[in-house]
């Protein structure tokens, strides 16, 4: 293929590398060497993940976590240009400012739908293993160029601005990757099997209603602990859905699947472990309370969870 997913990872790595160089060179940050090293290591794992033997990538990832744990990751102080300056620039460009931002989703969509499977000179244009990711990466490159051209911004300015945003996200940028990693280790260690055995022991076997209640709440709780509904589903389905709901009560697996994943998402809305959705945005939006987004989501999540329990119970007992 001509454009592969690895190229997008290299691009991500280059952006992070640029940020780390600026941090190394910033004497105003008292921990600039550890902070810069954190981003330098991260950029290496992004760019060369495919080439480095996994054992060493593991060591690098742990080194990053050690920097976080020892307080070595410190945010730099950014001097933002004045509001008046921004106001002047805004007046020059006005509504056109939106164009590069909107280009990203539009080009991603067009690229993923129209260019998937397209061949040039016998080679696939986009990496078939993840067309959407590659399309998104290419869309971003075009959008970066458009933004630089429109704002007369240099590549250096683009990296400086990326650094400001990346530092405002901080260590949370690593969390989704670490959580997915945790899920893999849990599976290999057999955590799933142990949990399902324990859950099976406390279920009142004859009661459809209580099985549905425990299943849905279990999906939500397990998701809250793991921060990821994907990890909860195999455990809860193997422990409860297949032996009880499907085999004993003859439930339709399609209903169970649709509703159980949503029950898990209710948990996602209520947990700081789902950092990408709940904690990163709080940082991005400068919220003082890092759990503010979660607090706002809890009432909706609980209402939907209750609805899921009732819907699943009704569907299974009516045998639709």
């Amino acid at each position, binding site marked *: 293929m001509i454009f592969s*997913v690895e190229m997008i990872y290299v691009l*991500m790595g280059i952006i992070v590398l640029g940020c780390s160089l600026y941090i190394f060179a910033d004497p105003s940050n008292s921990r600039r060497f550890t902070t810069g090293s954190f981003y330098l290591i991260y950029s290496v*794992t992004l760019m060369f993940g*495919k080439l480095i*033997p*996994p054992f060493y*990538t*593991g*060591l690098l990832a*742990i080194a990053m976590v050690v920097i976080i744990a020892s307080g070595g990751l410190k945010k730099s102080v950014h001097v933002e*240009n004045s509001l008046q300056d*921004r106001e002047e620039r*805004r007046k020059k*460009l006005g509504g056109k*400012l*939106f164009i*590069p931002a909107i280009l*990203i989703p539009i080009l991603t969509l067009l690229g993923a739908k129209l260019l998937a499977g397209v061949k040039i000179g016998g080679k696939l244009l986009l990496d078939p293993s993840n067309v*959407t990711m590659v399309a*998104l990466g290419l869309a*971003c490159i075009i959008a970066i160029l458009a*933004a630089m051209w429109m*704002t007369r*911004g240099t590549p250096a*300015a*683009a990296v*400086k*601005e990326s650094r400001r*945003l990346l530092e405002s996200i901080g260590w949370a940028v690593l*969390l*989704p*990757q*670490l959580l997915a990693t945790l*899920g*893999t*280790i*849990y599976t290999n*260690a*057999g955590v799933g099997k*142990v949990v399902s055995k324990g859950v099976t022991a406390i279920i009142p076997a004859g009661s459809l209603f209580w099985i549905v209640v425990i299943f849905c709440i279990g999906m939500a709780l397990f998701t809250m602990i793991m921060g990821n*509904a994907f990890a909860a589903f195999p455990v809860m*389905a193997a422990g409860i859905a297949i032996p009880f709901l499907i085999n004993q009560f003859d439930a339709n*697996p399609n209903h169970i*699947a*649709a*509703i*159980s*994943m949503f029950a898990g*998402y209710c948990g996602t*809305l209520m947990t700081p*472990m789902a*950092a990408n959705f*709940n904690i*990163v945005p709080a940082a991005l*939006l400068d919220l003082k*309370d890092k759990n503010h*987004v979660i*607090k*706002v989501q809890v009432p*909706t999540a609980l209402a939907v969870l209750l609805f899921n329990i009732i819907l699943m119970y009704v569907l299974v007992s009516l045998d639709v």
Partner: protein
Amino acid sequence: MVLIGVLLIIIGFLFRINSAVVVTVSALVTGMIAGIPVKDIITQFGEAFTTNRYMSILIVTLPVIGLLEKNGLQQQAASIVSKIKAVTVGRVLTMYLLIREIGAALGLNSLGGHPQTVRPLVAPMAEGAAEAKYGELPEKERQEIRAHAAAADNIGLFFGEDIFVAVGAILLMNGFFEQNHIQADPIAMALWGIPTAAFAFIVHAIRLRRMDKKMDRRLGGQKKPLG
């Protein structure tokens, strides 16, 4: 015994220890208790870390958003909405919730997102709507509006995306049932998500309406000039 790792996560969470540290320690401890050699644990750790690089895709969007913000993107969004008088915070966010949910249901997950859309567009639009109505906002309300903007994105995305057949969650569940010799149909799974998706939209839209009324009560009356 392997549950000690899960316990560590809960303890770490309760004591507010840095989540990245807690997660890593839990993974290492769980692996050791299960009797996996340390070298293998670190290898598995590195392997999974590399495989999941796509989770950090938001990094590619940072240069675009950063450059646009430097040139007043947020101010521009806010200024457009603050000119529209009929719009309230609740209505801005309900509209966004609807667009986000329908987009996700059509497989257009990338139409939104916190760094791409919420920070540069939706949050300033909602704040702009409130400023047009109430004048300068107290910090408490400003924070509440921003949190609601992030929440609208999450709720729209989560309850919309499973209606799309080719989404990871649906493929994961279908694969899991197949492995266990249970017949399932991804399209039916996706369609049976619609009742919950509709319910989630209605509940959240009602809550946003009530937030509007609450802000009217707290900040309503005379409009203070923008500072």
